């Protein structure tokens, strides 16, 4: 019942009411709803003729992703300091679509990522660039997806651990790079990296959980740093970090759950990143992945929670498949925007979460059965078994120099 698709007349009934007080926020919202309602109306007409709809254009997404892996146009110059991110976003998307590149290309990819590894430890956004926690997280995730001994062995874990120490601050927070800004992304990336590569130590993350909890706001979500506004990307970082540190009891889970469920838009079906902001396809993952994590936390008290998914999985899938696919492949933020690699990765990741929920109940697939994507591990956004394989490889192969702490 709860997983049935909404009818167009139901959706129209949810339209925004400005209550006679139009402001910038309300008029932006009314505009996007108008656009999306048109799409849903058109969709309902065609869907009545074809039960296989909505259809995910797997082939066109795969093929443009493979083109991107090979080379990118000049418009990507602004991501010249994020190339390991590009690799991770592309490989993860292809994994979700179950269409990984062949072994030779993957081996080339390992060699390219190695070129981005810095002699002081960690990875930069490209060859010769300073190491950065974001681009290191992306490199480690990409290598875990590739999952070969060559990939695992290419990581210098002793210097990686040294790098983590150089960006750690005394209060337990992390700078994104030496001399760079501190925020909750730094903490999440550091924890995720340390856990996957088995270089985690308690000393390295002393006080980190306490610092992260200081980012939970009166709304229930997490902000980038204490005092700021709750935000989907940062909320994911906060929650996933606490879960990886086994310290979720520190935060107010009920308030977090309330904030998370309220981010799903009643007309669009997708998620917004902050209260009174617009829907954006990328939050399909950042907000969507919070739900299986929250269910896992609540299941410690009552077992049945592990199969409870708190958001409307059907509405999110409908938004992604009918509103976020670009012509010719790739996915987008919202109708009217251009496709890009970041949004392709995170809308597909969100689609997978919407289909598989907590991962333990039966998959719920909107549209053609072939729309089903592979599963992800909600804490790392890499396939669950690929996380497991990497972790166990690194447990069997301890780094040459263990942290003295």
């Amino acid at each position, binding site marked *: 019942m*709860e997983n049935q698709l909404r009818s167009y007349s*139901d959706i129209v009934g949810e339209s925004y*009411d400005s*209550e006679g*007080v139009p*402001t*910038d*926020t*309300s008029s932006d919202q009314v505009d996007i709803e108008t656009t999306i309602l048109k799409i849903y109306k058109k969709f309902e007409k065609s869907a009545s003729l074809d039960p296989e709809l909505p259809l995910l254009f797997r082939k066109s997404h795969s093929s443009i992703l493979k083109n991107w892996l*090979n*080379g*990118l*146009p*000049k418009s990507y*110059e*602004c*991501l*010249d*300091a*994020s*190339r390991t991110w590009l*690799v991770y976003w592309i490989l993860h998307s292809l994994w979700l679509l179950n269409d990984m590149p062949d072994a030779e*290309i993957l081996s*080339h990819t390992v*060699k*390219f990522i190695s*070129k981005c590894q810095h002699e002081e430890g960690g990875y*930069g*956004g490209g*060859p*010769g*660039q*300073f190491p950065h926690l974001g681009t290191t997280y992306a490199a480690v995730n990409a290598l875990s997806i590739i999952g070969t001994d060559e990939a695992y062995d290419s990581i210098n874990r002793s210097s990686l651990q040294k790098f983590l120490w150089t960006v750690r601050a005394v209060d337990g927070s992390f700078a*994104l*790079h*030496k*001399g*760079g*800004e501190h925020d909750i992304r730094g903490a999440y990336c550091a924890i995720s990296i340390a856990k996957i590569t088995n270089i985690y130590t308690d000393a390295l993350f002393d006080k980190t959980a306490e610092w992260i909890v200081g980012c939970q*706001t*009166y*709304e229930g979500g997490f902000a*980038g*740093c204490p005092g*700021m*506004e709750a935000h989907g990307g940062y909320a994911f970082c906060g929650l996933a970090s606490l879960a990886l540190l086994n310290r979720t009891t520190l935060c107010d889970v009920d308030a977090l*759950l309330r904030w998370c*469920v*309220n981010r*799903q*838009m009643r007309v669009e*079906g997708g998620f917004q990143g*902050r*209260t*009174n*902001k617009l829907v954006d396809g990328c939050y399909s993952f950042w907000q969507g992945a919070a739900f299986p994590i929250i269910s896992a936390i609540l299941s410690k008290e009552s077992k049945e929670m592990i199969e409870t*998914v*708190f*958001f*409307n999985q059907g509405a999110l899938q409908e938004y992604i498949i009918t509103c976020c696919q670009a012509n010719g492949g790739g996915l987008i933020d919202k109708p009217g925007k251009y496709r890009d690699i970041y949004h392709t990765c995170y809308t597909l990741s969100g689609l997978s979460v919407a289909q598989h929920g907590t991962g333990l109940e039966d998959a719920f697939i909107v549209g053609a059965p072939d729309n089903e994507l592979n599963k992800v591990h909600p804490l790392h956004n890499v396939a669950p078994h690929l996380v497991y394989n990497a972790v166990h490889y690194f447990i069997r192969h301890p780094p040459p120099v263990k942290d003295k702490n």
Partner: protein
Amino acid sequence: MYDSDSDIGWTFYKDRPEWKDITPVPEDDGPNPVVVIAHSEKFEDVYDYFRAVLQKNEKSERVLQLTKDAVELNPANYTVWQYRRDILKALGTDLRSELDYVESVIKHSPKNYQVWHHRRVLVEWLQDPSQELELTGDALLQDPKNYHAWQHRQWAMKTFGLYGKEMEFVENLIKEDVRNNSAWNQRYFVVNNHFGWSDMNVQKEICYAMEKIKFVKNNESAWNYLRGVMLHDKRGISGNAVVTSFCEELYNNKCRSPYLLAFIIDICDDAIKKGESSSFHGADRAIELCHALATKYDKIRSKYWNYIGEKFKKLKKEQEDQQNNTETEEN
């Protein structure tokens, strides 16, 4: 971001006599690279020289100029910004002009982590936050929800104690757009860090939120603020008669905003936890409201409201069992 091909009068570094001593270093992607970005000739030229001086660790006026060209081509290159700061420090450059320079970059790229961080480091070095409120104010005029601008503003205010006129600033933004959640968050920030949650301030903020809710009832920002403020009310969310009667009045006037119904559910929850539940604010009312939300007023969140409804049903059963036990004991 800038169309480099349209640069008139641009001379490539490779054609500049004053750079003759430097051998450019092309990007070393290895024999079989992936995600190769097609660069303009200008981009390639500037970065070939940047890599060369980085390798040699040259810190000079001319490199300072080169980093300007490099960040103009890609303001998100954190390595260039970091190296630029290293040079500024090494050369003891006038940081006032650097402040003006980064301001102009911020105006071009207001949603970029690196530029705001550069600004913050300069202000730290100079220990002079005198322009920060104006700078962030300008950015927020362009985009009142710009996260980077708010974050920089909060940092400057917290570090240098610049709370003086902030309430007025926030007030104006909320007047401009009562749904601007960033402005509401800033209001909370100011009370939390400056005025403090004295009983009087709590009541003042509660009244402010209620005023704004009367104006636009279905505004989640104002409701969230009200709940946030009430976390500091010693009497709890159910113990403030002004708030409970405000909610009931709205309800009686047929307001069915999901945020109102959710708020009444929280009042019920608090009353039950304090052992003060009544027929008005108790489990039955909460269960009824959860059902109304799940089936009518907030259908997209039906799973959540069913879950909350179940919690109240369990609570109710516990209450009844307890009552039965006491009765049995009494008999």
